[in-house]
Each structure stands twice: as C-alpha cells, then as structure tokens.
C-alpha cells in the first residue's frame, strides 16, 4: 500500500514537532525515517499509525485519506522500541491479541499464530511469558504480533535500539530479508544512520520536524543536500573545514589558513564565478583523506601533525591538526603513523561545499 504524507504538520501546544512534511512511500518499499532524537520522526510514525492526528495536512493510504481513521481500522502493524509486549499474557496470547479483538474464531487464530511464529522462528516460545524471553526473542514476538493480522503497512519504531550491538546487526539484516520476502510496505524509524543505510530502500532525514532529504541511501551518501545530512550520514562523520572560495588563474580554490585545495573541474562549472570570496564550508569524508609521509610535490599538501590514533578494528581513525583545523582520516593498518609525527595530506575522493549560513550543498542546484 502506498503511503503519502501530504504537507503534514503536527503541533503540540507551542512546539512544532513536525513541520510541513511531504513524503511518499511506495508500495512494498522499506522507508526509514532517520534523524536525531526529538526530530519528529517518531511523531510522524505515530501519525501514520493513527495515534496522533496531524494538525495540518493529509495522510493518504492508497487512495484514501486516513486522518480520522482510528488506528485499529488502518490495517497497520506497529512495533515499539520497548516492544510493548503485554507482560501478563503469554507469547501466544500476545500474538493472538489483535485477532481476538477482531473476534476471529479460535481455530483461525491458532492457525495464524502458528504460521507467523514459524515464519519468525519463535514456535517454541508460545507458552512463555515475555519476561522469560531474550531481547531478540521479544523483538520477534513484537514483530509477530504486528504481522499476524496481515497488515498493509508495518511500522517499526526504533525496533533494534534495545538490542545489544551484535544482535542489532544480525536482526537488521533479518528484518530486511523478512520485509523483502513479504513485500510489505514498511516504515522504520531510527536514529542510527548505519542501520538506516543497510535496511532502507529510501531514507527520509528529518531534523527539527523538517524533512531534510528523501532519497536512496546511495544518493544520501553521495549527494547530501545539506550540511546536516552530510554530517549525520556516514561514520565517522565528514570533516568540515571553514574557509572561502577563490578564483585564481582560472582555477577554483578552497582557501583557509591551513588548507588550500583546488576544486575539481566539474565543480567549477556548477559554481559561478561570482562566488569568488564567499565564505563556505568544505567537506571531505575521512575515508577520502589520504596521508603520506614524504613531502609530495603537490601544492595542496601541507604538513599536518598526528594528534591521536584510535583503533577501529580493521582500520585506524587518525586525528590530524594544523593550526586551527582538525581533520579525521581513516588509515589502514599497514601504514601506522605515530603520534607527533608530521604527515602530508591529500584529498583524493569527493569533496563537498556547503553554504556557511544556510548549510546548503552548493553543488546541488535545485
């Protein structure tokens, strides 16, 4: 089922939780609402669920406006971060609860519960109480309860946040697999960008109730529309350096007391000449910062001081500094610098430019 949020606004008292949000979730896709806590993503989800009524705007399910439809009539399944498994009911009763409320007959209920629990591999747990289950099992039960009534839409509110790190990684893949198998339209709320990147067909990044960008994970990573998206997506986050643009000899430079970088040709095309002395933010992802130990001929490379080295497993995260600027870079373990060492830096991959004041990506013209 296609879900369309049409200029949705939600105001609590004086607080604008969601501001003029428009979003279309295509049928059968998994869309992630991503943003820091308090950004309005959960509110949006709860509006879709029918818990909240939007202050303005319309919510479409397929061809119907569902603004006034109570949750029970929306044919949705909802999984909370806390799972909200009723502690006084067994797993079976929990899963059967929606069906019982619909007064389906007993046999039918048994059949459906059995089917869904086998699908989610929790068939043996049916007689237990939620408190006797592990986090992962609880999560499966919650999903089972959401799915048992064959909803049109599955809503997941931070479903993985209560799991430990290892399990989280496993479960997110499983969730994705399950969603693909069922082909159910799914809206998934999370604050974890890596989780979002792995599961989503499309990601909506929200900040302070405003939609920042709605696109596929690739696009989000490659063409962030603004500084917020750029820094929020990707780990470790993008390096941001303050400075200005300057044309010289037909070349466009990013300038800063510590950094001088000639921008690639294609950028020059996008950016107009007039932007000569404009103050901008220069962004480069850590994985695109290369260090070398010998002075290269390049003008752009200057010598930086190695401040800190953090072990990240396969790679190392190195913090470099020079006068007023700090840079983080990822270095593989074959070339380990030592602290206090001076190194040269090269920006090899994609770089980004943002407006210092609006935060807009200067390279995406709308």
């Amino acid at each position: 089922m296609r879900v369309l949020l049409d200029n949705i606004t939600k105001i609590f008292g004086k607080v604008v939780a969601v501001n003029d949000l428009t979003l279309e979730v295509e049928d059968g896709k998994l869309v992630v609402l991503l943003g820091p806590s308090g950004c309005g993503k959960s509110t949006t989800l709860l509006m879709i669920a029918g818990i909240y009524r939007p202050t303005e705007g319309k919510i479409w399910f397929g061809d119907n406006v569902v603004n006034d439809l109570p949750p029970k009539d929306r044919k949705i399944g909802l999984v909370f971060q806390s799972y909200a498994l009723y502690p006084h009911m067994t797993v079976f009763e929990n899963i059967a609860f929606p069906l019982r409320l619909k007064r389906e007959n007993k046999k039918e209920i048994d059949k459906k519960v059995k089917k869904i629990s086998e699908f989610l591999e929790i068939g043996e747990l049916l007689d237990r109480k939620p408190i006797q289950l592990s986090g992962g099992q609880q999560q499966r039960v919650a999903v089972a309860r959401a799915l048992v009534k064959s909803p049109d839409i599955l809503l997941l509110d931070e479903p993985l946040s209560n799991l430990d790190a290892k399990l989280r990684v496993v479960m997110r893949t499983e969730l994705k697999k399950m969603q693909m198998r069922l082909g159910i339209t799914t809206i998934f709320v999370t604050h974890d960008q890596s989780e979002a990147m792995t599961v989503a067909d499309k990601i909506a990044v929200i900040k302070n109730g405003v939609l920042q960008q709605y696109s596929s994970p690739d696009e989000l990573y490659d063409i962030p529309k603004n500084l917020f998206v750029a820094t929020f997506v990707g780990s470790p986050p993008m390096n941001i350096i303050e400075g200005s643009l300057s044309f010289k000899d037909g070349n466009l430079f990013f300038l800063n007391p510590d950094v001088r970088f000639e921008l690639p040709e294609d950028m020059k095309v996008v950016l107009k000449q007039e932007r000569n002395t404009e103050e901008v933010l220069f962004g480069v992802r850590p994985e695109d910062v290369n260090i070398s130990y010998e002075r290269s001929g390049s003008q752009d490379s200057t010598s930086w001081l190695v401040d800190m080295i953090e072990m990240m497993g396969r790679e190392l995260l190195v913090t470099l500094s020079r006068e007023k600027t700090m840079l983080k870079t990822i270095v593989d373990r074959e070339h380990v610098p030592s602290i206090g060492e001076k190194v040269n830096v090269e920006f090899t991959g994609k770089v980004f430019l943002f407006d210092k004041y609006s935060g807009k990506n200067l390279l995406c013209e709308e």
Partner: protein
Amino acid sequence: MKGQTPRGATQVIPKRAIYSLKRKKKKERRAQEVRGEAVTFSRRNEIISTIIMTIISIPIFLSYLWLFLSSFSAKMWHGLIPLKFTLHNWRFLWQPIKFGAVMHTSIWPITLNTLLLALAVTISEVLVSTLSGYALSRFRFKGRVMIQGMTMLLHAFPGVALLIAIYYVLYTMRLLDTLWGVMLVKISLEIPMSTNIIKGFFDNIPWDIEWSSFVDGCNRWQTWRYVILPLLKPGIAAISLFSFLSGWGEFLYIYTFIFTSKKQTLATFLNSLIGEFKFVDYGLLSAVATFYMIPTLLFFIFTQKALLQMSFGGRKA
C-alpha cells in the same frame, strides 16, 4: 521525541516523594497534552468522565464549602446558600463560649495541647523511624527479616482492637491521663509504617553514593549530613506530614485515655460541642471545625500536588 513519560522516569524518583519535581510535572502535562492529540481520543468521553467525577465529588465539595461558608453566616438558605455575613460564630477565638448554661474553656490552651501533641508525635516518629529504617536497610543482622515481617504484621492490625490492653499498659506505666501517654500510643501505632517508608528511601540510596562520599573524604557524620540526609528529605517530609496530621486529628485515644478537661484537644473539644445532648449549633460547630482544619488545609494546599504523586503499595515488577 516521543510524547510520553518514559517508564523508567517514574520509577527513578523515590517513591512517596513530597518534593515537587518541576520537570516531571512538565513532562506529565506534556504527556497529557499529547494524549489529547490522539485520533482515538474522544472529547465526548472526557466530558462524560468529567461530569461523572463532578457528580460523585459533589458531597465532598459541597460539604467543605458548607463548612467554610456556614462558619461565616448567620443564616443559610436551605443550609446551602449563606444569607448574612457574621463573625459571631467565631467568637470562641476571643471569649470562652457559653452553650446553654455551660461555659466552655477558652480555645487557646486546647489548641496549644493539640499542637504540642501533634508536634511531639511528629518529632519522635521521625527520630525513631529514621533510626530503625536505617538499621533495617543498612545492617545485616540476625532477625532482620523477622523484624521486617513484624512491621508488616503490625501494620495489618491497628491498635484500636487492643484499646483495653493498651489502657492497662498505660496504667502500669503511670501514663494514663497524660498527653505523653497518648503520644506514645500514637507513635507506636505509626512507626511500623513510617519505618517502612524510610527504609524504602534508604534502600533507594545506593551504597556507591555512601562509599564515594567516604572516598571523597567525608567522615560518617558528614556523609550523613551532606549525602544521606538530603536524599532522605522527601521521606522525612512525608512522615512528618502524616504524623503531624494524625496527631492533630487524633480522637479515640484522647477520648479514652484522657480524663482531665485541661488536657483536652480540639478533637475531643469539638466532640463535646456536638455532645450527647445534640445541641447542634451548626454555625458555631462549623467555625470551630474550620479553625481546627486550618493546619490541615495549609498542609493540603502546599503539598497536595506532591501528595498525589506519592505512590503507595508494593509494585511487583
């Protein structure tokens, strides 16, 4: 941000907290507002429930209103609507009142008695229960569980069933007809409960805090004064409040164990005004009763919000 009070938040706060938690209140209000935004929320149900609540609250609401109003009025229409303002009913404040041909003593010594009793009960109850609460929470010793079970058991049957026997105990201790005797009975009756409350508060103060204060260089006294006491304050406030009010309102023990009219308190005084002869002068009675209610009302006004946030009863996780 989800518009809800996280489950944890209500549990972190020490139970029976008297102090007002502004933040929590805000959150609660927000949670309520949020509910009002729900699609399922029915304005009609809210109105119906408000109407039901109003109707069942009428007796309480009107009777207290009546108490207050009739103390200031010379005449009441149908006992409900005051017709004429007067201070006559309050004359007991500046002169001994006469009822029939019986002169009653001035109210002030009686008020002083009541106040002394209430304060004595409050102070001793706080002292005794803090000591015992601390011991039960912090020490591991033989019979601890037994004593705790005992506090529970005592809690279950109020001493009124034991009135006759308590009379004998007081008699043996030569404490009959003294407010001290009544005070002791009152305290004994209530310490099992207040010990339990205080023990709960001690339980909520982690050992770590105490240890870290030692590490930080506090001695035992400083730990007590700067670390434990502030955390205990809400509990002490709760006990003080309840013991004061119960001492202030005490009737039966004074009625039974006090024989000298000089040692009357407001409760027995008011009861004697109502009297066997049922000379029900509602104007005067309501004035005395309102006077008697003043501390209660003050406490009520200042602490009702906190009172309402206190939770009672063991919650089984």
